[in-house]
C-alpha cells in the first residue's frame, strides 16, 4: 500500500449546489465522522489537493472555475461528484441554466448519489476513489499516465439539443404542412 492512498487531501467546490450537499461534506470533517482517521484533510488549495469533491449541477458561471480548479490540481488526482445534482443534474436537470452533472465539465471518477448525499456515502466514495488514485499513481510512476481531457460540452445550450430537435421537427412539420 503506497502512501498516496494514506493521505488524500480534499478540496471541496460548490458548483451551484443548494448547499445541502456542502453541509454533508463538511459534516464528514466533524468529530462524528472524523475523516482525518484516514489521513484525509480538507485543504482550501487545489495545488495541495488530491481529491476534488464537487457538489451541484454546474452552470455557465462556474464551469470555468471547476475546470480551473481541476486543471490546477497535480496528478494523481481524483474527482468525486457528490450528490445527485453533481451526478446527473438531479432535480435541476431540466433547468435552462444548468449543465446537468459535473461530468459535463470535467472527467469524474466516482459518483456519490443522494439528495443530500450522506456523509457515509461521501466517505465510501472517497475510499473507492483511493483505488483510482493508486492506479493513477502507479501509472504516473511508470510514465504511462494519460491526462484526461475535458468533456466537449461547453455551453448550457448543448443540453437543449433535445429541445432543439423537437422544435426543429415541429418547424419542419409546420413548414411541410404550409
Amino acid at each position: 500500500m503506497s502512501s498516496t492512498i494514506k493521505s488524500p487531501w480534499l478540496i471541496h467546490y460548490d458548483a451551484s449546489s443548494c448547499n445541502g450537499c456542502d453541509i454533508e461534506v463538511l459534516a464528514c470533517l466533524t468529530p462524528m465522522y472524523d475523516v482525518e482517521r484516514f489521513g484525509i484533510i480538507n485543504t482550501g488549495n487545489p495545488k495541495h489537493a488530491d481529491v476534488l469533491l464537487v457538489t451541484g449541477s454546474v452552470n455557465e458561471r462556474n464551469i470555468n472555475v471547476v475546470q480551473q480548479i481541476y486543471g490546477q490540481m497535480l496528478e494523481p488526482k481524483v474527482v468525486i461528484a457528490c450528490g445527485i445534482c453533481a451526478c446527473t443534474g438531479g432535480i435541476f436537470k431540466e433547468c435552462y441554466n444548468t449543465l446537468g452533472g459535473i461530468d459535463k465539465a470535467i472527467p469524474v471518477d466516482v459518483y456519490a448519489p443522494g439528495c443530500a448525499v450522506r456523509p457515509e456515502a461521501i466517505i465510501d466514495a472517497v475510499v473507492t476513489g483511493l483505488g483510482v488514485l493508486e492506479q493513477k499513481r502507479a501509472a504516473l510512476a511508470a510514465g504511462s499516465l494519460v491526462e484526461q481531457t475535458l468533456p466537449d460540452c461547453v455551453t448550457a445550450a448543448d443540453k437543449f439539443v433535445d429541445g432543439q430537435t423537437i422544435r426543429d421537427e415541429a418547424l419542419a412539420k409546420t413548414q411541410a404542412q404550409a
Partner: protein
Amino acid sequence: MTLLSFALSLVGFGILAPVLGCLLAGIDRKVTARMQGRVGPPLLQPYYDVRKLLAKEDVSVNSYQGFYVGISLVLAILSGVFFFAGGNFLLVIFVLTLSSLFFIIAAFSTRSPYAEIGAEREIMQVMSYEPMVILITVTFYLVLGSFDTFAVLEQSEPLLLSLPLVFFGLLFILTIKLRKSPFDLSYSHHAHQELVKGISTEMSGRTLAKVEIMHWYENILFLGWVALFLVWGSWWAIPAVIGGVILVYFLEILIDNNFARVKWQAMLASSWAVALVCTVLNIALLVWIP
C-alpha cells in the same frame, strides 16, 4: 564548536531530527484530535503525507521557487547543526533568519496574490519574534559570558532560574515559531483554513514536501532552545529537559486548540510588549538580586 562536535552534530541532527520531528508532528495531530473529541490520524501520518507529496507530479509555478525552498531547508538544517554542536547562538539565529527569508522569497517569487499575502504575513511574524530572539541572546550572554550554547553545560543550575521571565518570552514567541494558533497567520498545520493556504499556496508536490521536512527540523531546533533554559551540568538535567520539553509542547498544543487566530497588529504589539517587559524586568532582577 570543534570540527568533531560539528561532524557529530551534522550526523546526529541531520538524521535524528527529521525522525523525531515527524513523530512529534504525528503526536501533535493525535493529541489535537483527542482534544477535539476525535480519533485522529495514525501516528505516522506526517510521514505518509510527505511520501505522497514526493510521489506527486513534478510541476511548479516557476523553476526557482523549489530552489529557494531547498536553500531554506539547507539553512534550517545548518542552523540546527550549529546549535547542537555547541556553536555560537548568534550564528544559529542568523542562519535561521536567513532560512526564513529564503522561504519568504520563495513565496514572493510566484507573484501569486495569495502567496504574497502569506509572505507579507510571514514577514510580520518574523518582525514579531525577532526582537525577543535577539534579547534572548543578549540575556544569555549577560548570564553566561559566552554565546556558545554549550556554556550552559558548565552551569551549576539551569538558566531558567536566572532568566524566568525571558523563558516566558521564549514560550510566547515559540507559538509564532511553531506556527500555532493564535499566531499562525501565514501558514498553519492540520486542516486549519486561511487565505487559500497562506505562504505555501503555490508550493506543491516536492516543494511542499521540503517545507514539511523543514518544519520537522525547525520544531526540534526550537525544542532545543527550550532545553537550553532547562539544562545544567549534571546528569539529572536529562530527565528534567525531557519532561520540560514535553510539557512545553503540550502547552503549545493546548494553546493551539483554545485560541482563535488574532490579527497581525495584535500579534506584533503583544509580542513586542512581552519581549520588552520580560527582558527589562529580568535584567533588573539580575542586576539587583545577585
